[in-house]
Each structure stands twice: as structure tokens, then as C-alpha cells.
């Protein structure tokens, strides 16, 4: 992050970090998903970010985010992949025509992604999905200084997991296993935390 603007190269560097980080935890995420679903979440996330990281990005940050969306759509057809693609696309629309994202617009971008993903997946906040993580992060970023954002996002992603401990999943495959799902982390929320951790792994 060059000061309070996130440019194409920042995005590319971030994608590389996340691709690396999620690659390292793919097995963990597959296992978490396997408890309640089909066990493909680690593959979905790591393949999606790897594809995005290897895609040449245009300078227009909106178009760059659109390429990320397309990359996810290409390699993944699992729910999480489609949702991430949807989120990238919403951010892309909002940022189109600019060379960088002003950090103070980040809360709105995350919020836009959250809203688009809710519309796409017909999910609600409180269903114990990745939507809750996004919502928490969007809220946590609000009014924060650029240098405090990463830490706030991390806290918010962690707290979301803690907050939903003991509550059943109400959406996706995991919905079928209400009892079992209550005792487990939602794999999508866990994946989101790992993504944020990877983002934070090297100060940008």
C-alpha cells in the first residue's frame, strides 16, 4: 500500500501473499469443509487465488479486480469460489475507472462485496457464513487509519469465529448438520480468517 492508495501492483503483491498463504493451509481448510461438506474448500480458495495471482492485471484497479473475479470463476465452481468472484466483481464495479483504491473507501468496498454476495447466495447475516466475517470486517474498518486497518480486520475475522462458536450453520451444505455444525467453525469463516492472515503476513 503506497500510503492511502492501493494500486494494481499492491493488489498483485497481495494476491501472491494470499495465494501462498492459502496454499499452505489448503489441507486444513479441506478438512474443515469435509466435516460438514464436500471437503473442497482448501482447493477452491488456494486454486482461485493462485489463478488470480498468475493473471496479468490491467492498471485500472476496477478492471484488475474484474480479472480477479474472472480468475475465480474460471477455476472454481464451488460456492465459496462463486461468492469470492461475486465479491470481487462488486468491488470492481465500485472502483472502475480509477488507478487505485483510496483506503478510506475500503469499508464501503467490503460492504459492497458483502451485499452482492448476500444477493447472490440469498444468505442472511447471522447464518454463520463468510458473510458474517465480511460484515464484521466492513464494520471494523470504518473510520480507521490506514495503518490500523490490517490489525482491525484480523481482529474482526477472529472475533467472528469466536462469536459463532456453538451456533448452528443455517446456510449451504452445513445447514443439513445443524447439531454437528454448532460445535465446529464455519469453514468459510475460517477460510476468510486465513486469507486475512495471509494478507497481514507481510506489512504492505
Amino acid at each position: 500500500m503506497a500510503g492511502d492508495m492501493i494500486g494494481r501492483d499492491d493488489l498483485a503483491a497481495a494476491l501472491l501473499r494470499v495465494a501462498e498463504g492459502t496454499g499452505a493451509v489448503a489441507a486444513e481448510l479441506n478438512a474443515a469443509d469435509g466435516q460438514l461438506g464436500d471437503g473442497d474448500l482448501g482447493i477452491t480458495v488456494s486454486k482461485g487465488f493462485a489463478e488470480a495471482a498468475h493473471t496479468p492485471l490491467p492498471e485500472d484497479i476496477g478492471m484488475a479486480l474484474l480479472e480477479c473475479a474472472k480468475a475465480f470463476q474460471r477455476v472454481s465452481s464451488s460456492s465459496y469460489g462463486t461468492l469470492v468472484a461475486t465479491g470481487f466483481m462488486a468491488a470492481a464495479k465500485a472502483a472502475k475507472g480509477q488507478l487505485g483504491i483510496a483506503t478510506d473507501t475500503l469499508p464501503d468496498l467490503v460492504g459492497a462485496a458483502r451485499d452482492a454476495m448476500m444477493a447472490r447466495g440469498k444468505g442472511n447475516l447471522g447464518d454463520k457464513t463468510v458473510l458474517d466475517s465480511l460484515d464484521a470486517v466492513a464494520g471494523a474498518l470504518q473510520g480507521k487509519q490506514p495503518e490500523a486497518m490490517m490489525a482491525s480486520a484480523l481482529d474482526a475475522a477472529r472475533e467472528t469465529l469466536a462469536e459463532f462458536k456453538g451456533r448452528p450453520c443455517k446456510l449451504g451444505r452445513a445447514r443439513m448438520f445443524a447439531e454437528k455444525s454448532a460445535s465446529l467453525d464455519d469453514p468459510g469463516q475460517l477460510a476468510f480468517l486465513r486469507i486475512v492472515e495471509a494478507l497481514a503476513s507481510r506489512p504492505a
Partner: protein
Amino acid sequence: MKKILNSPASYVDEMLEGFTAAHPEFYAQPERRVIARAGGAVKGKVGIVTGGGSGHLPIFTGYVGPGFLDACAIGDVFASPSAEQMASAIRQADGGAGVLRLYGNYGGDVMNFDMAGEMVEMENDIRTTTVLLADDVVSAPKEEAEKRRGVAGMVYAFKIAGAAAETMADLDEVTRVAQKAADACRSIGMALSPCIVPQAGKATFEIGEGEMEMGMGIHGEPGIWRDKLKPADAITDEMIDRIVADHPFGKGDRLSVLVNSLGATPLEELYIMYRRVKARFADMGAEIVMPLVGRYATSMEMTGATITTIALDGELETHLKAPAACAYWRVV
């Protein structure tokens, strides 16, 4: 892994290659993982597409053909196709009169098909509509019926919607008939042993010797009880009781019934079940029309069976009986 394959990664693509090679009179694969009618889209006819994970033959690809569907996108085993593949299937099905997306209510499929619809509307100016199958009565209570998953009821919906499209009705009309067929279906399943998803390499669930699970889904989604295996009549009775609790049948009603194997359960045992099904509906005074007994929607080598009913009125019955042909079901 007791499966005949070369490699898990090539399972679906080699399957599709053999599939189109065996039935070139019905199927073509214009793009990877997209199956279309051998003759292509029919000009002026509403197109019907479906899609979903592999591992359910003859669902989904098998029901492409005259009087049935126009194209289909197919994913890895038990995994959604991508939105791109779905968009491509929609383009293949388009004969200029719009395209109906007719498929089962699974989160991933819905998201991808919605996205695909947005794509073709933007890029190709194709008008699309959606009808979701949500026929599994045990997957959600009646109050949340729209959350139910779609199972073998698809077979009836494909047939009936396909017949409606064949009359050259417009998109709204085909969509109406498809929705009516979908709404008339009720299904329930039971399983005795799992199947193996090639890429996972292990069973989708575990179930004890001598045990069964009532209400299990076609991907091994948990059912409503698991206990020791009951006699065929007791199993069939409970399945019918649960269906008619959701959609009663009475004197003079007409319906069709599909007694379907999940794969390994042999025809012999489906007929033992059908014998009871027929007696039960006869007791209610309802008449079964064109019963289907066989493997119409499977989960590879899973052991178990599903029962689907569709309540018929004159319109649905006419479409059900209209001529149609695919490699697995021919109505003449």
C-alpha cells in the same frame, strides 16, 4: 476404491468422451463439459438447459434429446459446473426464443446459474428464466419448502417441460408448465451404502452393516433416522407416508411414480418396492400412470432407492406421455 477408472482427475472427461461416442445420434460435446443435442438448438423453440455435478447418470446429460432438454453443463463429480460452462450451455440451447434454466436446488448450482444468466443476458442478449426442483420432502419442512433440495423429480420436470417446449410455446408458457411440474413432485430417498467420489477416494459416508438411513440425500446428505435395515414393505410404507403427508392423494387422483435406484440397488428390489407402492396408491383410490422403475437419477454405486410422485392433471399427463427420446428413456 472399487471403481473402474484411469485417474480421478480424468473421470468426468473420459466419461463424457465415451458417452458421446456411444450415443452420437443424441449427444454432442461442443465445448468441454457442455453437452448439447446432436442436431444443435432448434430454431424458434424455447431452449431448456440444466446442469449440476457429475456422478448421477442418466441425470443430467442423459436427458438431452428431442422432447427433453437442449443442453447441459456438467461439473466434477458432485460439484457444480462453473458459471462459464453454464453460460455456454445456455448459448448452445438458445434457438432465439429464450432459455429456461431447469435444475435442482443446490446452493452452488443456483449461484452459478444465476451468474450465468447475468452473463448471457449481458453478452448475448438471451432472455432466461429459472425453475428450481425442490422435491425432497425430508430436506426441509413444508413451511420452508423452497429450501428443499432437488432430486429425482427432475426426471419428470425435464420430460414435461421438454414436451411443452416442443409445442413451440413461448418462454413464459414453458416456464409456467415447468414450474407446475416441479411443484407437483415429491421425493424421498433412503440409502444402504455409500459411493466413492473419485477425487476424494473414499466413501461419502459410513453406514454400519445391517443399517439403513431414511431420507438421505443423493450426495450423502444426512437423513432423518438411521437404524437397522427394515423389510421392503416397511421402508416403502414410510416413504409413501412421508410423501402423502406433504401431498395427499385421494380417490380419482392420477399420478406417476418413479421408483429409482441410487445405483447398486438392483431392479429386482425396485420391483419389490413398486409392488407395495402400487398397492398403497390403489388403497387411496389413486391411479398410477406410466410408472418408472429403474435407474433414472443415481449416485454412481450408492446402494439405496428413492421414490418420487408427481400429481397429474390433464395438461401434465399429456406432456408426460408426449413422444420424446434420449438414450435412456424413449416415449413413443
